[in-house]
């Protein structure tokens, strides 16, 4: 099915891509800044012409936390879980679940790749190490 991206808001475009197993990255026409946040303006230079591209889904770990408290029954069932700040192409940062890596192996720069669980009860994006 073809998606008519033009009729969707930036947020809807992001979500539509996610549901296809893709992370949409915004790329500023003017300054080439890359960012994941679905904004129609460039946070780096203020330009209004923003393209989008599909991320290759590979990035590096910038920082992370390990949740031992979920603040809700659903997330309490997942603890301990890891959320990482992952830098994709052009340092575009995304916050996402990180799995299949032991806590002592977590390190800045760790190379990760995105997976997209189909189970709706799971987080939409889960990064796992490139070298499992």
């Amino acid at each position, binding site marked *: 099915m073809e998606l008519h991206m033009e009729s969707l808001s930036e947020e809807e475009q992001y979500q539509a891509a996610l549901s296809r197993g893709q992370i949409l990255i915004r790329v500023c026409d003017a300054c080439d800044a890359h960012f994941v946040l679905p904004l129609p303006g460039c946070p780096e230079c203020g330009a209004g012409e923003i393209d989008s591209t599909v991320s290759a889904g590979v990035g590096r770990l910038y920082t992370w*936390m*390990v949740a031992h408290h979920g603040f809700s029954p659903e997330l309490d069932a997942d603890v301990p879980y890891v959320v990482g700040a992952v830098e994709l192409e052009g340092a575009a940062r995304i916050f996402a679940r990180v799995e299949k890596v032991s806590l002592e192996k977590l390190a800045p720069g760790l190379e990760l790749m995105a997976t997209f669980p189909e189970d709706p009860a799971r987080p939409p994006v889960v990064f796992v190490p490139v070298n499992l």
Partner: protein
Amino acid sequence: MTELTKKSGRSVMSLALEACRGSVDDAGMNLSEVDGVISYGFNNDSVSSQAVATALGLPAPRYLVTTEMGGQAPCFLIMQAAAAIEAGLADNVLVYRALNGRSGQRVGTAKVPGTGPMMRYPAGLVAYPQIIAMWARRYLIETGRDESDLAAVVSAQRLWAVDNERAMRRTLMSEQDYARSPMVADPFRAADCTTEADGACAILVTSRRRALDLRHDPVVIEGAAYGTGKRSGLDAGDAMLWPDLTRNYTTHIAEQLWSSAGMGPRDVDMAQLYDCFSSSVLLALEGLGLAERGEAGRLVSSGATVPGGRLPVNTGGGLLAEGYLHGMNTVYEAVSQLQGSAGKRTVPDARSCVVTSGALTDGSALVLTRETRN
């Protein structure tokens, strides 16, 4: 300021009124002179400034502002009150924060709408301790420091809390106690996180001329700043665009703050630094130039910030030990200290203090001094 409890058993309005009345009484002013009220709240956890003005029976309010802000607000709203007074828009302005933060809506339980939350909630990033834990981790990585810096902040502030009858955590905390504190969002343990409270706090802002006629020596606003940088984000918890999670707003406002005060980091006798979580003290010490990059933990470990130290920090135990009134009580502690009314923990001869509000990409700060009347 009201007492801080886990269950006030009272309405937020009743707490707000007690704090506002208390502030005006303490100053020796008549309530009918108050013509401005400014407040902040988060996700409808407060009551509006208009409602408070009504319940206080203010005869002619002419400056009522209710903001939807978090911990970045208090110093900023004091600035607004001062600016309103200077512009002739009001004469005497109350700034308050009131909430049932423990028995009512607790941290992490409110699901707020918006693009920022939509981008982080699905990952399981739902509460501020989790978000700021990621800042703390990156800070420790880049500076080559470790969790003992966080422990140092917690232990140092507990030394102050012992003498603060309002503090909700008044016991000392050793390194061993810290290590036993349960993990909440690694690297944060429960001890690194503020403790939620029911209560209210208000500060009365007036002109210097009027203040000279009131009961206490005036506390003068020497300098003030609110700010952030490029790529600040969509809301207080959004850090998707912020380039450097090891430096928060304090780095961005330091120059404006100190130049507006005509003072520098070496000129203040103490600091009250917003500390919803332990790491924000480290980032503020460095951002404001009170410590060199990566050296804040060593400064705290050296004993400089505890009672008797050369730079007392968070002299009521901070939000970590006193309780979480979203930083309004941080400003209150500064004013109490400078007016010499902080009881046993009063810092002798302290005449100046820097105060901050906020922990993330945006925030505010004040430089305050005590003016002694003859």
